[in-house]
């Protein structure tokens, strides 16, 4: 059975194959990639629109037996939780593909990278669309190898050993986590007898409290390694700073979301366990917010700075998830999308800076980007301001709603604890402001101390403008994701 989602998942894969076949013809391959990316993006909007029309259930479902012996079904479908993330994935992949058309990667051949981006896109969409735990797991793992190649073979051209180490570290950490996650999935299956995502929440009653806690912890560790939750973040800065631009974009914009999406989706299956573990997740999230902000404040490398800022932003998402309320779920989902777009834009801009000056070290970039490349500086300023959560831009709603959710967490959770979390998160937001304005001051402002560099090219504008537009659109019209039905749809999960 070939449903709409199979097409959306299959198109990029097919594209990857075609690109590889065309690999002798560099530019053609890149254009073919864009074509497939565009088709996928267009296709991804359809189910998203359908989720809005639909009553809140799953759309574009397909369900066939896949591995009978393991009770695994090839089940796909999207709901209001996953559909926006699919669109996000398609959008960011499209931007990456467009960005590759005119600018070849600094090392490694272009067609390979284009193909890998397409594979990553396909796998990520598959992860979001999977309605069977094992199918989810397969797609979840499918993301890894392409990303490993992206970092290890197309990464920082000055440091082949370091980029491979960073890639392997990323992979090993995530795989360890995903193995734990798999154990959690299998425990769920052992107790409920199904891998069906749509069925599981209603069967939570069949799981004993102790198992629920265990599963919740396993999910916390498993997805936490991916998100990454605070003490498990050690792989992130390296991976980002060694990855090529498109790698960073997809890593931050899509891959991290797999973790938060997983927590959002699957903690609902073990409500009693989640209640026990949630305060710890909230605490880790809040620690991540402050820790990430502090790490950024003293950071001297722009890419690492953005990487650490992701730790902080993901902290907000985690805080929202840990409230276990519909409000929190909505907030987390919004923050997911917003962070994806904004951080992607930041990485694109920093990548552009790196293309021009050859480094992301603050000292190497020099000052006064506003003077040396006004549009580039302005783009960085815009992305930074969006990232620090300015109301009217996308980042605000996620952060605000997260804190709002923390203000009234689920009844079973200690409200005073969460109010403390909220306050600390708020202080973290102030620190976030601080490090971004300090970074702007350091990079964009000041007296030009070296030559002007090429400003943003037309191709770059083409790649970035959807992101800028999305940041504005989501900021000014948050109803795109926060319409009155979106909350009730998420409520349907439980």
């Amino acid at each position: 059975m070939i449903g709409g989602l199979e097409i959306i998942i299959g198109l990029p894969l097919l594209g990857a194959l075609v690109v590889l076949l065309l690999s002798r013809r560099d530019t053609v391959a890149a254009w073919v990639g864009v074509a497939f990316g565009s088709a996928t993006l267009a296709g991804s909007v359809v189910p998203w629109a359908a989720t809005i029309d639909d009553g809140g259930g799953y759309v574009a479902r397909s369900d066939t037996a896949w591995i009978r012996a393991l009770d695994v079904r090839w089940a796909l479908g999207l709901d209001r939780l996953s559909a926006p993330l699919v669109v996000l994935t398609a959008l960011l992949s499209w931007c990456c593909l467009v960005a590759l058309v005119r600018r070849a990667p600094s090392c490694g051949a272009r067609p390979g990278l284009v193909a890998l981006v397409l594979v990553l896109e396909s796998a990520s969409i598959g992860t979001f669309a999977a309605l069977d735990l094992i199918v989810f797991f397969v797609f979840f793992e499918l993301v890894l190898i392409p990303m490993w190649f992206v970092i290890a073979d197309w990464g920082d051209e000055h440091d082949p050993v370091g980029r491979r180490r960073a890639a392997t570290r990323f992979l090993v950490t995530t795989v360890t986590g995903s193995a734990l996650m798999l154990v959690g999935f299998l425990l769920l299956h052992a107790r409920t007898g199904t891998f069906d995502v749509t069925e599981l929440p209603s069967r939570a009653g069949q799981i004993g409290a102790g198992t629920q806690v265990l599963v919740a912890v396993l999910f916390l560790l498993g997805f936490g390694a991916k998100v990454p939750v605070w003490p498990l973040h050690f792989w992130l800065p390296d991976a980002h700073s060694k990855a090529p631009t498109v790698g960073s974009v997809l890593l931050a914009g899509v891959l991290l979301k797999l973790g938060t999406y997983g927590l959002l989706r699957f903690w609902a299956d073990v409500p009693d366990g989640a209640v026990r573990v949630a305060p710890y997740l909230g605490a880790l999230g809040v620690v991540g917010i402050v820790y990430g902000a502090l790490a950024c404040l003293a950071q001297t490398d722009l890419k690492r700075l953005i990487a650490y800022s992701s730790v902080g932003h993901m902290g907000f998402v985690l805080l929202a998830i840990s409230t276990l309320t519909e409000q929190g779920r909505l907030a987390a989902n919004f923050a997911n999308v917003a962070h994806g777009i904004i951080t992607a834009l930041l990485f694109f801009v920093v990548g552009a800076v790196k293309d021009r000056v050859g480094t992301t070290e603050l000292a190497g970039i020099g000052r006064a980007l506003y003077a040396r490349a006004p549009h580039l500086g302005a783009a960085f300023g815009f992305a930074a301001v969006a990232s620090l959560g300015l109301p009217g831009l996308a980042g605000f709603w996620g952060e605000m709603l997260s804190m709002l959710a923390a203000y009234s967490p689920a009844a079973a959770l200690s409200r005073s604890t969460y109010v403390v979390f909220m306050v600390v998160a708020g202080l973290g937001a102030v620190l976030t402001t601080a490090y971004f304005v300090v970074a702007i001051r350091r990079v964009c402002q000041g007296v030009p101390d070296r030559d002007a560099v090429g400003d943003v090219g037309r191709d770059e504008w083409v790649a970035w403008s959807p992101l800028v537009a999305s940041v504005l659109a989501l900021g000014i019209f948050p109803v795109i994701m926060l319409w009155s039905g979106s909350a009730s749809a998420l409520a349907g999960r439980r």
Partner: protein
Amino acid sequence: MTQAVDWVAIAPPLSLVIAALTALLVDAAWPRVRVLAGLVSLTGVVVALGFTMSGRNEARSTFCFADGELPTSCSWLVDDVTSAWWLIMLIATALVVLLLWTAAVSGELPAGELHFLVLASAAGALAVAAAQDLITLLVAMETVSLPAFALVGLRRVDRRGAEAALKFFITSVVATALSLLGISMVYGATGSVAAGPVAASIASGNAVTPVIGVGMVLTVVALGFKVAAVPFQAWVPDTYVGAPIPVAGYLSVVSKAAGLAGLTIVLVRFLATYVDTWSTMVGVAAALTMTVGNLGALRQRHIVRLLAWSSVAQAGYLLVPLAAGGLPEDVTALQAYALMYAVVNLTAFAAALAVASWGKSDLADCMGLARSHPWIGGSLAFALLCLAGLPPGVVGLVAKVAIFRSAVDGDLIWLAVIVGVNVAIGLVYYLRFLAVLVQPAASDVAGPAGVGAHDEDDHWAGLDRAVPWSTEFVVGITLAAAVVLSVFPGLLFSAIS
């Protein structure tokens, strides 16, 4: 009271034995037509495979002995589990025969004896999977081992082959001796060597303790040795490196499968009552095996040695379903994993053979292999991914899922977690290998794309003798199988059940 023989039940091993003898005789009769022996043995394997497939779905037992007082017990039982093992073993044997093809045809190795030994050993492996009493089991194990000793040492002029054969031989016979001691103790404690009576004796509490416990442990030594479980793994790297590569592949798959089949029989059919005890024992062994295997592989540079250590680690994973209690679902998981492992591991060994045919053995020699020889290098890369259990090697992933599921369903969460950590450790070296395979040559980094390809050809120039067609064929069909199974992992399970 002569035993009735059900010829259908013993047809597959029998056809192997007949093919083995025929190959020997044919080669003796027409020594110049070396290809004959290979054809004969391949035919034998295919016939055996045919018998196996046609005999599925119905359990047959034969060589039964009844004595009125005791319940009837049989030495030979062919059920679904046995058929599945046979399937795995026969497929692997066919692949090994193909891998040995060129060596036999070129006269590098004596064709008739070579095929005779392989098939004799494989017949033993089949017998292990069907054996229902300890005597048959032990003799069958020896049928697997003895020809294997000879196979390992077959390259007689090779110092390393001789050394490997001696090491393999000594460790193996000591393990066999320990196993025999264990069998004697089980016999002493229960008064029987057949599955039914032994199990009944243990279940009724009549078995003499602690003799039965010690006997149980010692009995599985030879099986653990075949599986390469810690602490019986030490021979593996040395032997694999010294043996002809197809033989190493044989040892890592067929011989290991025989060990697992025997282990399953001993634990499930004989010692079911002690499941709590041996499940912990096997669980600890599994954890140690995969850890030691992965650590051993972590810093390897020699291709075959790396594969050897990796096969030790894989043995650890393979033990997990047994640790989970060896229930029918667990055995299914075990066999699914074993089938996957058989296919992709032989891909890897076939690729190693191809590389070795260029006179290379070091990881560094494989630099850029996936680019210069996409067929071999790509297959090897895919096989490594399957072994690592990462998509696109979905079949490996699904097999690992089955393993994990066994552990979780058997309430061995700790073991599942250890497996998870080990999968991650394993990644490190699989990926290192993978990275070497796909690494562009230095010139490719510097120059524009497309120019590098020529330089790589130079890189391999002079050593680029054609890979034997049989090796390429094996690579091809195993890769195809792995890819198909990756898309339809359900086939993996339907193949064995």
